[in-house]
């Protein structure tokens, strides 16, 4: 059949979806060559060097690359994002309480969740950059630091938040809610499948096939609890609680609306982020490139 080379992070959720596709043989006629890497940035590297055809990456990154001349396309994969977490007994209740507190942020100052949080705070007249003490670090380290009490609140990737939740931490602000607060209909899928325009043009069939398979997998994951039991060995969940949170958060993140609706909300969000992050974040363009989203052909074969 046709070959599709896919790059994925070993500990990421994309690996789960691929496992569902494999076990249910959803990608009939497609030969999936999957490369697992340890770093979340490996997918970008692999796409750029042409070592894989498709990888799951950041929406903003694709937008930025396009602006800089790389002809990449994007298709929504998940809208799961992080949250600001605090200890259950913490006195912090809302964004405003973060003033003068130590907030640890996973990733860098250009992390998408962090930008959304900043924008939300600004709407409430709070400049977190100035009014809170910020620590940046690698996600696992930030996760650890909150538990050690070195930070009073932390903004981390959703999977770390899920583990914290299982350990009795509480959400101070869910970035999904923040997105809605910024005027979006629904949270946008901030990560998705990326592939080059060139590949999409010459292998449209392959891409469409794969997207169809991915949707079928999503359906199964939404419906079936047994499916999750089968996935459990992959998930590195420490306990039942964590496992359940992982499952539910993943389900929440599965995008269920047409690409066009996504694109509309994405444009709004992009504008907001451009205002917060500036060209440093979004690149030279101040508007979202309308050609960013890939439109699969209606299923017909």
């Amino acid at each position, binding site marked *: 059949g046709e070959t599709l080379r896919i790059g994925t992070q070993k*500990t990421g959720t994309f690996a789960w979806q691929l496992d569902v596709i494999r076990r249910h043989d959803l990608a009939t006629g497609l030969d999936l060559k999957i*490369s697992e890497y*340890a*770093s*979340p940035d490996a997918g970008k*590297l692999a796409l750029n*060097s042409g070592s894989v055809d498709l990888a799951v990456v950041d929406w903003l990154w694709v937008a930025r690359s396009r602006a800089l001349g790389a002809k990449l396309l994007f298709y929504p994969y998940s809208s799961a994002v992080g949250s600001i977490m605090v200890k259950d007994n913490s006195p912090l209740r809302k964004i405003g309480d973060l003033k003068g507190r130590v907030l640890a942020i996973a990733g860098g100052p250009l992390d998408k969740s962090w930008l959304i949080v900043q924008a939300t705070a600004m709407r409430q007249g709070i400049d977190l950059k100035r009014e809170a003490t910020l620590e940046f670090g690698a*996600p*696992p380290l930030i996760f650890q630091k909150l538990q050690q009490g070195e930070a009073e609140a932390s903004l981390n990737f959703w999977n770390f938040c899920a583990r914290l939740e299982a350990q009795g931490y509480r959400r101070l602000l869910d970035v999904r809610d923040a997105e809605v607060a910024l005027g979006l209909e629904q949270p946008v899928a901030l990560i998705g499948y990326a592939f080059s325009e060139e590949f999409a043009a010459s292998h449209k069939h392959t891409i469409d096939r794969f997207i169809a398979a991915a949707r079928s997998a999503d359906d199964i994951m939404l419906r079936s609890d047994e499916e999750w039991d089968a996935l459990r060995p992959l998930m*590195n969940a420490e306990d039942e609680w964590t496992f359940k949170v992982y499952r539910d958060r993943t389900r929440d993140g599965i995008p269920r609306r047409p690409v066009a609706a996504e694109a509309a909300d994405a444009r709004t969000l992009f504008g907001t982020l451009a205002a917060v992050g500036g060209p440093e974040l979004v690149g030279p363009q101040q508007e979202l490139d309308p050609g960013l989203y890939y439109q699969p052909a209606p299923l017909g074969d």
Partner: protein
Amino acid sequence: MPRVYSLAALVAVWAVVAALLQSRLLPGPLTVGTTILADLRSGELPFHMACTLGRVVSSFAIAMLLGSIAGYAMGRSRALDRYADPWLIVLINMPALVTIIFAYIWIGLNETAAILAVAVNKLPNVMVVMREGARALDPELDEMARAFKFTGLSRIRHVVIPQLAPYLSASSRSGLSIVWKIVLVVELIGRPNGVGFVLGSAFSLFDIAQILSYAISFIVLMLVIESLLVQPLERRAIRWRRRPA
């Protein structure tokens, strides 16, 4: 024997500290030992270790060979040194991340790129050390060899290399460790196997026992190689040295 005592002491210290702290963030020798055993049985550890070792050996060989030759040439020829030195400074101070990214982008996310990136990272360090060694060569022995018309080969083998031996020794020992550390980064960023790949995944899960079990397995391997191969060879090579009184 001292070797054994000393390692035993190290493990003992670790065990005591771990027992006192009782933290998931510092697993004791027992926990790590069990993890190692489990990973050995599953075949995971030998597999990833073999991948890493292959990369370490290839890049080390490339870097040592080219680096020694280039460093020696720069140490001997002042003119060459003057011209090549700025390039060397650029190369040696280039962040590993940059070389790795460029290798991966331009060569592809494959073995060649990985090995090359590591070799390029290590190369200038070998050059810098070997250059010092070449500069410190004894001109009197050189004259002797010229007077007696030593062939090029025998000059290298009997006059130059023995003088460079401590530099070779230093740069290969410290070099092997640098290569291994860079291989980890290279694997972390873009290889689907190897110890670095495992460490990266373990780090994102904050699985310290896993991290330690792989790190320690490699270290044990190095200890074995040192004890059985490097040190006996070295002892032979410096037999001639008068022991300080």
